[in-house]
């Protein structure tokens, strides 16, 4: 049995004394990510290279100590929350934030995992390129975190989620070995282990170098803002746009609650008297763009849009997107806590599911905001509350469970992009049978036979061989 002291000494020898921390207050800051789930870390360390990550992981493996990788900590499902009977070591990748190589001709860049998503896009903008996955947290979230969660974003409707933009990943496996999964070839031989790793939520190792596909910036862009008298009208318009044969770059919905708080932040001229607002972006060559814009405008108008505005310039477009992408962070204007769901439902069921979600929250007397990727049916019901009010957590809890059940009953899934993490782990049996869960557990065990790598995440109790999945530690709130 390795004591904490031995493990800390080994980590300090492997990294540097200064980059291995055990101060209780600092550990407390790494007890959670942007979700509400709070765990406990035993050590926090900051490696600066693949070798240091490998050495830290190897030290944990020797000590039989679980570890959790963490990037910017903007995850919303508790994926980076350290939990376990033995508090895990948190391995933070934020100091590994260099763009290692950009090959503009091949449209590939190798980056370290701590590079921020938006920093990467800005750094390659002068080549006319960008990194297409654009989560709302893109100014702060790291590429490593995007890989772990297979992150989406408004523009993934057209460009695909993170998995489509990752060519290869250098991974420190849970025993400390370093391997490269995938490759730059058009079709690497063998099983697609890269595909298995992307979206594994830190349960199969730690990415230390990532080859990302860079996407040309669209030649021209038009952004439309449409406001609707009812949510149902807006939802029907979403289905109609896609049915008309248009795949917009992005198709986002915000309800009145959300529009009010984001307008208070960005002052972008959002219609605060609308029941729902659609933000539609189309891009492409200038000749086609006008035609597509007209098609979208007329479809929106036919489905009850009171007004459709096209962004006058880049500044207005940026302001609209800033509003959309700030929505979660802005809800503290209503109340200090939020609980965000991430279910996906078939687009054709949007109207009825939105009504159900609204009814569920009304029954529990909870404030609801909706801001979501309507184009791919990825709902983000956002329950806003003050956790200091007695009894409110139980109601939030009950509403959350009912929302997930309603979405699954409509043929949906648990998470569009935020991941399962800790938050939706125990809902997995709603969508997967025992055989599915077993198969996933086998794959995970193949990567992490000792069960040390971000334990207690993704797969429900009994879904893996690890005994420590049995109970959540005290203080964890799901």
């Amino acid at each position: 049995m390795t004591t904490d002291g031995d493990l800390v000494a080994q980590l300090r020898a492997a990294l540097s004394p200064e980059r291995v921390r055990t101060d209780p207050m600092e550990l407390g800051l790494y007890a959670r990510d942007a979700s509400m789930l709070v765990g406990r870390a035993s050590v926090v360390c900051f490696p600066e290279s693949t070798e240091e990550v490998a050495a830290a992981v190897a030290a944990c493996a020797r000590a039989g100590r679980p570890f959790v990788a963490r990037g910017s900590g903007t995850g919303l499902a508790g994926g980076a929350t350290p939990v376990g009977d033995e508090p895990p070591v948190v391995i933070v990748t934020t100091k590994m934030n260099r763009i290692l190589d950009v090959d503009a001709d091949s449209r590939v860049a190798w980056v370290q995992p701590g590079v921020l998503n938006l920093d990467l896009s800005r750094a390659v903008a002068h080549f006319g390129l960008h990194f297409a996955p654009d989560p709302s947290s893109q100014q702060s979230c790291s590429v490593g975190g995007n890989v772990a969660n297979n992150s989406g974003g408004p523009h993934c409707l057209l460009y695909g989620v993170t998995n489509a933009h990752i060519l290869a990943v250098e991974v420190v496996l849970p025993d400390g070995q370093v391997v490269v999964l995938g490759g730059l070839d058009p079709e690497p031989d063998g099983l697609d282990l890269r595909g298995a790793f992307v979206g594994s939520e830190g349960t199969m190792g730690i990415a230390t170098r990532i080859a990302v596909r860079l996407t040309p910036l669209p030649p021209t862009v038009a952004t439309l803002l449409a406001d609707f008298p009812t949510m149902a009208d807006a939802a029907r318009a979403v289905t109609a746009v896609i049915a008309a044969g248009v795949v917009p770059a992005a198709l986002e919905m915000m309800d009145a609650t959300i529009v009010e708080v984001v307008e208070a932040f960005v002052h972008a001229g959002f219609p605060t008297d609308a029941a729902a607002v659609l933000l539609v972006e189309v891009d492409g060559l200038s000749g086609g763009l006008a035609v597509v814009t007209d098609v979208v405008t007329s479809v929106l108008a036919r489905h009850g849009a009171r007004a459709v505005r096209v962004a006058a310039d880049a500044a207005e477009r940026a302001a609209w997107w800033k509003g959309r992408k700030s929505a979660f962070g802005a809800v503290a204007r209503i109340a200090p806590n939020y609980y965000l769901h991430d279910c996906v439902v078939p687009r054709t069921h949007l109207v009825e599911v939105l009504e159900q979600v609204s009814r569920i929250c009304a029954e529990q007397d909870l404030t609801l905001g909706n801001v979501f990727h309507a184009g791919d049916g990825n709902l983000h019901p956002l329950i806003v509350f003050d956790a200091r009010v007695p009894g409110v957590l139980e109601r939030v809890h009950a509403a959350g469970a009912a929302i997930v059940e309603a979405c699954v009953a409509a043929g949906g899934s648990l998470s569009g992009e935020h991941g399962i993490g800790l938050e939706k782990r125990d809902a997995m049996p709603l969508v997967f049978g025992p055989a599915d869960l077993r198969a996933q557990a086998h794959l995970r065990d193949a990567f992490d036979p000792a069960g040390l790598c971000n334990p207690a995440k993704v797969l429900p109790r009994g879904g893996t061989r690890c005994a420590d999945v049995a109970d959540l530690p005290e203080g964890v709130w799901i």
Partner: protein
Amino acid sequence: MTRGRVLPLDLDELAACVSCGLCLAHCPTYRATGEETRSPRGRIAAMRAVEAGAEAGPSFLDILGTCVVCRACETACPSSVPFGHLMEASRQAVADRAVPWWQRLAYRTLEHPRLLAALTAAGAVAQRAHLVPGSLRRRLSLPELPLRRARLAATGGDVWLLTGCVMDAWQRPVHADTVAVLAAMGVGVALPGPGAACCGALHSHAGLHGRAATLARRVMAALPGPAPVLVDSAGCGAALKEYGHLLGTAEGAAFSARVFDIQEWIAARADLLPAPMPSHRRLRIAVQDPCHLRHVQKAESHVRTVLRPYGELVELTDEGRCCGAGGAFSALQPELARTIRSEKTAVIDAAGADVVASPNPGCAMWLAAAGVEVRHPMEIVAAAAGLAAPR
């Protein structure tokens, strides 16, 4: 409003952070380190931990002390968490332990113009005689101090000009240029007495709330009447604009409403600006946004309005990120401040400008110490219009 049990902050303001992390990339110390203890989100989490009973020990002091208080997180925060208030109130609670005697002494010096002038003269001689020890020189990174101060005289009573402490001692030519530009616009400037020598900004940032409030009342008394109070130091301007919050009085709020950054006030009258001389060479000017101009006064656009007739403006690509000066920050956290500055100078170099315009003396000196060619916007205007005071 409910005050905290341990920290004298507003608990509702403390609760307003949802920990989304959208502030992280805008925080200069998080940028430099990638650590939660150096981030707005982490600092707020630490304040909450202390409110919940954790010890406000050395690590808490370190978490508070390594914040520049640039307040970029406030601009970035979708919920507009008033981080500056939370930080200043938290520092107030620990000031007894966090601010050592020598720091208090330094802040006190700023309140006494004659003492500051004498020290400046002594320092100027010492610098020229190479008597300043290398360690001190590196820690303070002072500019070359003036041996003699330029003359500065009132020209009327339309507006007040805050003269301040270090700026009046070390950068009086900027004041002189400001007065000259205003005179060319037909605006007479009144100068305050020694009561307005120190705005209390540094005291306030350090958590020395009582002293800051005393200085605020003294400044208000030295700048009476209805005339607008113009400030050519962005940090001081921000401090004066917050007297309403600092003092919590209607009188303070009314005074704050009279305060304008010099560029802000001139931009509203830009048609009166003097024309550039025919011989003036149009420079490529990169505008450096002092944090307290951009995030507290939200007046950065006015600097551009004022400078546009005199040169070609070049935008820096870092969304106005902090340069690391931060009032006393560069002296108190020199290593962190240098890391932040090196990123800033890289962005400045990439912009390829002839000169950097900085409307804050602290930023200007800190950047100049790294070899950047820096001028106050008023110096640029005065030089272009042929009004510059003799140096």
